[in-house]
């Protein structure tokens, strides 16, 4: 009896050590999020409702989500393809080993170079008066604008996002490429497979969960990006994070609870993308253990 009481008290004491962290996470991470989630299902009077979710179905909000998803998806897709190409080049492409470390270091910098300054860099480069824009116009007589190029648009947003998406992909996929063992390639080769057959039947299938998972991560990464978009296009572009930004600042939707629903939609989308990432990761780790 005494023993059990003592052991119970010891267990209690151990958990006390987590109290500061639990209080912090509860107050500044979980509670605020829950407040939004619960608010999305409440009427202004406090009752339960699905109306806010249903009200998201307006042309303007629908389009905001759709453009956001499109930008995030395309920037994730191209980020994956180009990043994979670069990571493959420095791992299995037979390039000099000296290139590897500098590229990885640079990727660490570039993947963290997001937000407002990134937008400035692109405005200075391919904006209306940017370096490349002027150079093409003055030296080659090519007017980008005449070809429909506009940095302050969805394609412009994608091109800008790629600056942090590609290095992020390089950072995440390089270890996965390193995980491809030399023996697999040799075994395939000695069994008569060409390089292409090896990649199609062994290399890419092994990498596939990592590739798709990383793409989900890049998607979530782009979806939540606010600062770059605002600095690049101002409040004009109708994408979900900018709409939410405007809603928080000035209740442009005319209903606070609809704002919660808008935020909930964003959590759901990034949450799904991350769940996909985690699921695919465990799958690929099971193979390679």
């Amino acid at each position, binding site marked *: 009896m005494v023993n059990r009481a003592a052991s119970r008290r010891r267990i209690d004491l151990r958990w006390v*050590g987590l109290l*500061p*962290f639990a209080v912090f996470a509860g107050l500044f991470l979980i*509670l605020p999020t829950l407040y939004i989630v619960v608010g999305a299902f409440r009427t202004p009077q406090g009752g339960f409702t699905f109306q806010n979710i249903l009200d998201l179905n307006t042309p303007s909000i629908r389009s905001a989500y759709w453009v956001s998803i499109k930008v995030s998806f395309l920037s994730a897709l191209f980020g994956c393809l180009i990043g994979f190409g670069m990571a493959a080049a420095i791992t299995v492409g037979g*390039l000099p080993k000296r290139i590897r470390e500098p590229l990885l270091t640079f990727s660490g*910098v570039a993947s963290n170079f997001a937000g407002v*300054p990134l937008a400035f860099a692109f405005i200075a480069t391919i904006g209306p008066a*940017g370096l490349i824009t002027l150079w093409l116009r003055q030296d080659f007589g090519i007017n980008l604008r005449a070809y429909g190029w506009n940095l302050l648009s969805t394609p412009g947003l994608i091109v800008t996002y790629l600056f942090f998406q590609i290095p992020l992909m390089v950072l995440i996929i390089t270890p996965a490429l390193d995980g491809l063992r030399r023996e697999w390639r040799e075994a395939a080769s000695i069994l008569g497979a060409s390089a292409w057959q090896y990649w199609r039947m062994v290399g890419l299938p092994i990498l596939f969960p990592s590739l798709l998972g990383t793409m989900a991560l890049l998607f979530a990464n782009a979806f939540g990006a606010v600062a770059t978009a605002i600095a690049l296009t101002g409040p004009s572009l109708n994408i979900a994070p900018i709409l939410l930004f405007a809603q928080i600042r000035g209740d442009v939707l005319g209903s606070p609870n609809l704002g919660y629903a808008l935020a909930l939609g964003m959590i759901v989308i990034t949450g799904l993308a991350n769940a996909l990432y985690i699921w695919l990761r465990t799958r690929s780790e099971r193979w390679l253990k």
Partner: protein
Amino acid sequence: MMRVWAWGALLFGCMYFALPLIGMTEFSLSMRRGEYSFDAYRVVLADPRFQATFAYSVVMALVTIAFGVLLVVPTAYWVRLKLPKARPWVEFITLLPLVIPAIVVVFGYIRLYNTSSVLPLTGSVMGTNLLLMFGYATLALPYMYRSVDTGLRTIDVATLTEAAQSLGAGWVTILGRVILPNVLASVLSGAFLTFAIVIGEFTMAALLDRPAFGPYMQILGANRAYEPAALAVIAFGITWACMGLIGLVNRFSRHTQAKR
């Protein structure tokens, strides 16, 4: 054949990275018509609002780092030592800020801690500063925690603790004089990354209406032509310096460990 593709992919990527950096640098030097000059930098650096917001963000970053270290190191240590069962949960929570967009978190802050709530943090300037700092701490949490936890993995936490206890050390001494020095490289890595994130952060500062460097850059970008490019170069330099310091710290700690 393979190598040609490899060089192609690499060169394409490098062009992609190099052009915007060249573009912003060139632009930042072109304020004076017809020649390169540092005018844009001079104007920016002399702007009192630049000085004020930059100082504000630096202070915020330092406070966030201090808070983050005080929160994360004991927690990660405690979880490793006493509560391995709680590890998946703690890890899950530390990764949540990567899943929940910052804008949603700050949205929750504004509604939860407004002037009519139980904890009216947004009611005063100091309270809002504090709230912003907590917000930054959540943003940095995934990086800080992972960095420290990786550092703890390389040392034998249990043995070090028992050794210190047998010599009569209390918890504060153990954490401050035994554990912290041993994971200093990891803590510093997390700290520099936190600095890089906080210094130019825009969303939270703008929505909480604090005079930070991020919103200042955005306002300047909407009104000026050359100064934003100069700011971008400065911001890139800061990011680069932070990453460089992380690399330096890691290399240094590897050397000292190898010597041991």
